[in-house]
């Protein structure tokens, strides 16, 4: 299933079946929205139209390296460690 791959979710056969069913129910609700006449309305991506908010270019404190790495499932020499990036082509 392409969506599962895009979302990096490993799903069992049953899960795939289940979510496909849900998707169909959900699509009906999407179709209902598609019937709504929105004329030339622009979409709302933010609940309130807040003005531009910028911060000054000032360096603040960073975390100590130990804190950065503290929750890392696997760390090495001050880095986070991840398995090979290119999928194995045995």
């Amino acid at each position, binding site marked *: 299933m392409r969506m599962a791959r895009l979302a990096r979710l490993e799903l069992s056969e049953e899960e795939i079946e289940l979510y496909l069913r849900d998707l169909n129910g959900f699509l009906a609700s999407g179709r209902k929205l598609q019937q709504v006449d929105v004329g030339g309305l622009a979409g709302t991506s933010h609940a309130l139209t807040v003005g531009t908010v910028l911060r000054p270019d000032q360096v603040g*404190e960073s975390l100590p390296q130990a804190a950065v790495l503290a929750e890392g499932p696997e760390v090495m020499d001050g880095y986070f460690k991840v398995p090979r990036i290119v999928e194995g082509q045995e």
Partner: protein
Amino acid sequence: MNYDIVIGLEIHVALLTESKFLCSCSTAFGAAPNTQCCPVCLGLPGSLPMVNEKAVEYAVKAGLALNCQVHHFSRFDRKNYFYPDLPKAYQITQDTYPLCTDGYLEYYIDDQLHRTAITRLHLEEEAGKLIHSGGSIVDSEYSLVDYNRAGIPLIEIVTAPDITSPRQARLFLEQLRLLMLYIGVSDVKMEEGSLRCDANISLKPQGSAVLGTKVEVKNLNSFRALERALEYEAERQRIVLEQGGKIRQESRTWDERSGRTASMRSKADAPDYRYFPEPDLPPLRLDPAWVERIKASLPERPLERLRRLEKEFGLSRYEATFLVNYPDFGQLFLELAVAGGDNRALINLLMGEYAGLAREFGHLEPERLTELLAIVDEGLITHSQSKAVLEELFRSPLSPRQIVKEKGWEVLRDVEQLREAIQGVLAGHPDLLDRYRAGEERLFGFFVGQVMRAVQGKADPKVVNQLLKEELNRLV
């Protein structure tokens, strides 16, 4: 069949802000891994981005310098994809409403002015850095991630497919680099990754209006790599087409060692980035007056400087180009030169001995250079002595006059003393004098050299010539 080459570039420039794009961590290069990170740039759950004002200012500056339309309304979007160097698994970028569009960059190729259109320029955040355990990503069992770089502000600049040769692509990029340097928004170091370039290249039958299938070339880490990779790729595509083959739409990576491009992924595997408006950041609404102020404060651009150097200072294209390409030399020249004046001595000095020494030891204070030129002009030292003084200036804190005095390098003005030296040289070489008398005139130069040596080069060669001539005439 002959083919036209069509190239478009996608350039990322890291902006020279003190703090990152969306958090206040430092952007300094070279720190220990994962020491310039905070909840925001690590993408910790719950953290939120906040846009750095300076990054916007620099992006606007770059857009204006590239003659773009700067939009008073632009918006941030999320580009979603998984990669270990991308902390939030999405990049905050600008997709639908970029900050700048529709600009161009002009540059010379062999005295011919070219113009390449800029399609868009937008702000986005940098990813972290990966270090692969093996020699390359392909033969690495594991990789290490450093997020110090994650979140540094970038501008992405996309050109129209206006470029028609690999060399032009390189010259364009060199000019772009120079422009960014001039306006002070980036240090544009390709070796440190603060300037990066991907290229799209396709071939089409000469004169055809229909574009061919394009290939994206990545991993171009130097100007040379850009040109070589595109040359290789154009040739590869030409051969495929000539053999009746089809170009596959794909991404290819340049391998410096083998001098080839290799396929990375085909279009079918191209990720679906699922862009949507970034809900954590309100759209960017710029005050038109602020944009105008930035425009007014924009420094001179390379092409403008080139024209000024030619027009106002009477330099040749070659000389002006030298000064434009090495802005520190240009700056020095402009400080010392006089518009409309005789700047020959100055430009010759800068492009001659000085260039090599300055690159090795750094620049001299302009006042000391002015003084050096002045004492040559006054005749305090000779032109050939000025080289020795120059070398000395890089070693000593003294002024040129002090050096000359300390070393006793003043030009010998005492005519009698010079005459004595001449007489001494002639007396020391009676055989040669005879040959000269016999008509071997080229020995004149030899005598000059010997005299100069006798006075340790401190005489004005013109005066020596004059006196030697007189003396020889007298003897002949």
